[in-house]
């Protein structure tokens, strides 16, 4: 294998192809469109299914249909498109069929803009579609990590019959980095036992998300929740940096985690005992780890490209065992390492504890920053 220069959107598309993707359905939306364009050439070249749908509604329901046949299938989109797909995602979850969604997140709400953001955290991690379901949401921080995550996501989604989401900030989709694309896997020929194939009588299969009897629906809910428990146990992923002897833990994912690493490295060189935790699995969230870290450190600083969506999960995991602060940029802005370094320096000098909710305090500080 060789390292090549890849644009994020093209790289994850090729990674999915190499993982044995059988069908891709999508709709153009910036900053994800290169993936659709790449697939429009690559999939037919290999004799696999590609279709540009009439909308994100169409795309996700094409994915739903293909997923019911047991095919490896995916779509990719960006935030407004993800909102449109929420209906389909809920149905797919309720039908218990696996699929992959790559969400290349942009600024919002509304039409927002096409700059990188992490504003989809809540709609992806905490649902967005109706009903009780939990997708697996992984948030890589580089082109290489995106490639590896997408490549492995089908196996995970199929193992748990669940939705696999790879959520990247627009910046990762758009930037070019050296990356190694894993080898081409063979397209699966067999049809999974649960999938529809055109069978009659005893071989007949019906895939649906409707359970009219509440007891039956609850049994399904519980079955899905049991599977989710197993996912929470076995599929938590994160990276730790400089956490040995750290008194302050910075927590950030994706691009904000990556920028935070630069700030943490700089702070360490200045002798500040600070480390970084970069969750890769946002769902399941590394609750246990954060709980343990909260017991060891004096403070936690959460860094995001939103108004503190993961912050709530960190607060809930930390259970008040340590002081938590927040720093975020919104609207499609990526924080600079200097901004995070300033926060690290401020907190390490001794932050005022119990002064209010971390979001309120951040909003106060933001007033001077945005002027």
């Amino acid at each position, binding site marked *: 294998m060789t390292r090549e220069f890849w644009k994020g959107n093209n790289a994850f598309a090729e990674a999915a192809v190499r993982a044995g993707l059988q069908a891709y359905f999508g709709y153009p939306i910036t900053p994800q469109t290169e993936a659709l364009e790449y697939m429009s050439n690559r999939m037919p070249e290999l004799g696999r299914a590609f279709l540009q749908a009439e909308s994100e509604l*169409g795309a996700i329901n094409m994915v*739903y249909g*293909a997923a019911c046949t047991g*095919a490896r*299938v995916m779509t990719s989109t960006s935030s407004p498109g993800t909102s449109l797909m929420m209906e389909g995602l809920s149905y797919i979850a309720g*039908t218990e069929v696996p699929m992959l969604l790559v969400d290349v997140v942009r600024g919002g709400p509304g039409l927002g803009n096409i700059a990188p953001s992490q504003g989809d955290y809540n709609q992806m991690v905490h649902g967005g579609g109706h009903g009780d379901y939990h997708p697996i949401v992984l948030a890589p921080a580089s082109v290489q990590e995106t490639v590896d995550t997408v490549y492995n996501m089908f196996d995970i989604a199929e193992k748990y019959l669940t939705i696999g989401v790879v959520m990247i900030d627009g910046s990762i989709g758009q930037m070019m980095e050296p990356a190694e694309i894993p080898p081409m896997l063979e397209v699966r020929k067999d049809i999974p036992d649960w999938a529809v*194939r*055109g069978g*009659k009588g005893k071989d*007949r299969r019906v895939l649906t998300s409707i359970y009219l009897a509440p007891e039956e629906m609850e049994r399904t809910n519980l079955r899905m929740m049991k599977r989710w428990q197993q996912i929470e146990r076995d599929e938590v992923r994160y990276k730790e940096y400089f956490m040995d002897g750290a008194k302050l833990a910075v927590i950030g994912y994706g691009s904000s985690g990556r920028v935070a690493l630069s700030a943490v490295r700089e702070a360490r060189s200045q002798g500040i005992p600070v480390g970084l935790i970069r969750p890769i699995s946002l769902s399941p969230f590394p609750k246990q780890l954060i709980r343990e870290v909260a017991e060891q450190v004096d403070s936690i600083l959460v860094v995001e490209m939103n108004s503190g969506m993961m912050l709530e999960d960190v607060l809930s995991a930390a259970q008040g065992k340590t002081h938590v602060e927040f720093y975020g940029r919104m609207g499609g802005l990526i924080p600079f390492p200097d901004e995070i370094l300033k926060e690290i320096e401020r907190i390490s000098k001794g932050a005022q504890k119990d002064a209010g909710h971390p979001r309120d305090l951040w909003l106060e500080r933001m007033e001077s920053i945005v002027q």
Partner: protein
Amino acid sequence: MLVIREICGWNVWKVLYSRGVKMVTLDIKNMDVVYKRPETLIDINTHYCPGCTHGIAHRLVAEVIDEMGLSDTTIGVASVGCSVFAYNYFNFDFVEASHGRAPAMATGIKRVRPDRIVFTYQGDGDMISIGTGEIVAAAGRGENITVIFLNNANYGMTGGQMAPTTLPDMKTTSSPHGRDVKKMGYPIRASELLSTLQGASYIVRRSMHNAKNIRMAKKAIRLAFETQVRGLGFSMVELLSTCPTNWHLSPSDAAKWLEENMIPYYPIGDYKVHPLLKDIKI
């Protein structure tokens, strides 16, 4: 006994048997079975209201699937509406779509399993209100799927609200004083609309209000599936249907109402027929 059971189905037979219907077997011992339940129609009672034409449409589809020998290659896509449980009645693979999205779901299936026969079964609220985008796009693409479209001029499942197909001045629970076209707009004629698309190969409208029309409907369904088998592209059969419960009419009055009111607005006819289909004799 077997003959009667074949004719009327196991459930009805059980009732007849429990009421002492046994002696008739002697009289029909040597008779041929000329009419029986299609193999691919499951022998259970449906949830449809008395006089509803969904049962007829189900039967026609099942007969065609049987006659064409497609029962072990077909995947059906049920939609949202009264036919949400259609998959309970067909003895082959089925999936259940979200409201209006059946053509997109069918597209996904067909694109990864092009050798399978894929059809959707949709009502008017599902197909030409919430699902207008999906049906127009699928027809425009010439997607090689078949659509069975039942038009009963209202939302049956939710209790008879106004649909895009509701006739002018027709009373429904959400147009209690009749559909005022100045405020609520005009009905959408789906067959006429879809027939303008180049990708559509077979678009016809039939009715199910009497035996003659039901026979014509079956031929159309057969041709629609023949369209797909031949890989000719998108096919749709619109079936004018009765909804006695929400129309507040008896089944026979509903059939009459359909003939007198719906057919003038929604004329029966062939709106688009691919040249290669014209020579097929059913």
